[in-house]
């Protein structure tokens, strides 16, 4: 649904996105991660034809965005971090205004969408009377109006309370399940991304530093926690026996391919080393993300 090939964007002299190649397959919930200024919003801007790439190719729904923007965005809905509307107009009027930039939309379709997001009965009220949560729902409604196949969500949970975040998460899953939408989700909430996304890309300083499945991200750095009589001596023994590839923090070891904790334990016991505890250390997406950020732009994907 989205393909970026060697995309670069330079603002003045400052590169915002560098050599970004990304592919979002149909039917996935794809997470785009990165800290503020990492280039996520610029990348999303380029996907929507709002920011012109300096170099490279951006294709959305099979069409090149710079030359065939109208066709590319025909079946795309988008939500941005702050749900902003014409406050002085009603929700219904806002939806009518926005829908007419895509295609003529019937009142029935607008009513359906309002109902879907749970704003029925409030649509004639001015948006200035809406809470942040209601605005977020209205933002979702405007994104759903053109019956999209692709939904681009840029920080959709920004500013929501925990209940609102939970509700938004449920809505995204519902959109994916019931309407079969492909969703690109940019978020700071790693927990949210971990729960929702099947694939992720991590950006740092304008570059993509990781792309893969969430399970790849958490499995790649499968560390094992080891509590032995002398950790450093144990690590040396295991390295010499080619049972581990790395160790860190005086308590974690990285097993070599095909090696299980049973072999490690057996080897240490045979060498007369006391083993008090050995357990697979579950890596969270947060841990993975932070380790990527520490490596900076030089770091290739760990593994």
């Amino acid at each position: 649904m989205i393909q970026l090939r060697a995309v670069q964007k330079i603002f003045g002299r400052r590169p915002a996105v560098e050599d970004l190649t990304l592919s979002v397959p149909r039917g996935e919930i794809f997470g785009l991660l990165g800290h503020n200024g990492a280039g996520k919003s610029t990348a999303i801007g380029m996907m929507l034809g709002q920011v012109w790439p300096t170099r490279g190719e951006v294709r959305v729904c099979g069409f090149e965005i710079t030359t065939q923007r109208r066709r590319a965005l025909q079946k795309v809905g988008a939500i941005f971090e702050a749900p902003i509307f014409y406050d002085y107009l009603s929700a219904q009027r806002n939806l009518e205004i926005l829908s007419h930039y895509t295609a003529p939309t019937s009142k029935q379709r607008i009513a359906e969408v309002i109902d879907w997001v749970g704003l029925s009965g409030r649509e004639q009220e001015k948006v200035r009377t809406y809470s942040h949560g209601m605005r977020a729902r209205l933002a979702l409604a405007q994104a759903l109006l053109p019956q999209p196949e692709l939904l681009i969500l840029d920080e959709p949970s920004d500013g929501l309370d925990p209940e609102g975040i939970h509700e938004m998460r449920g809505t995204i899953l519902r959109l994916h399940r019931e309407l079969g939408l492909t969703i690109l989700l940019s978020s700071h909430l790693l927990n949210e991304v971990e729960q929702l996304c099947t694939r992720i890309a991590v950006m740092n300083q304008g570059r993509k530093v990781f792309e893969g499945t969430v399970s790849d991200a958490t499995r790649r750095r499968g560390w094992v926690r080891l509590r032995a009589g002398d950790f450093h001596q144990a690590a040396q023994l295991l390295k010499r026996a080619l049972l581990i590839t790395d160790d860190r923090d005086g308590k974690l070891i990285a097993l070599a391919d095909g090696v299980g904790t049973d072999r490690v334990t057996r080897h240490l016991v045979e060498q007369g080393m006391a083993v008090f505890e050995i357990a697979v250390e579950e890596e969270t997406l947060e841990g993975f993300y932070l380790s990527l950020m520490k490596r900076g732009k030089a770091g290739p994907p760990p593994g």
Partner: protein
Amino acid sequence: MFFHQLHNELWKLFGKKRTYIGFGTFLLAQNAMLIAFRFTNWKQGAERMLAGNGYLVQDYISALTVAVIMLIPQILLLMPLYASLVGGDLVAKEAEDGTLRMILARPVSRLRLLTVKWLAGAVFSMTLVVSLGGMALLFARLWFPWAGLFVFTPGPVQIFSVMPAEEGLRLFALSHLLMAVNACTMLSLAFMFSCFNMKPAAATVLALSFLLLNVVMENIPFFEDYQHFFLTYHFRCWLLVFSKPMPWPQIVQAFCVLAAVNVTTFIIGAVGFHVRDIKS
């Protein structure tokens, strides 16, 4: 689709309270001027001028005459201000608020968006001018009788004309067409600046500064032979319709120059808007 989009732009424009600031100010200014005209020696001055030229005062101190007298300073001072205020808002305010990003996430071309916005602005300009003239005539009629039109302008466009009420009304209506072009031109100037990456107030201030620069330069003796290069020279064309005989070539020339300024500013704005990156 185009008319739906234009209709929506008009909803957005006329749904905002600040759009009506100009209308409200005109209302107050006109009533203040009417009171001043009636109760100060302003009226006596006009009467003396008529009598001195052999005309009967009661035939020409009329609603039409007072309406034109009220329009002259308002068209010069207030109309550019309010046209620029709305023109500066058209794109820059949406960019500042963030709604522009939401619109441009949709498959609408930037040129189409600007076209409907400019047209909505042009409708506003015409409405503003027609309301201004209508209100001036209405309020003047409450205080003055319906009689012939007397126009006297001592400035760069020197006019001394008297005419029957029917002809005066016809020319009064015609002058509004030219005033609407003036308003559109000021709106287009502010609109052009608004298409670039700047605050709405900056776009308005730049447009007004450009107007002020024209006024100042036009009044410098060195530029006396180059007056037709200045926007303000052509802005006065609406007064020329009251001249006898009417200088059609000069009016058509001014109309063409102002139309060209509108087209040029729109093209510059559209190019600037097209190449610009829209970011939050």
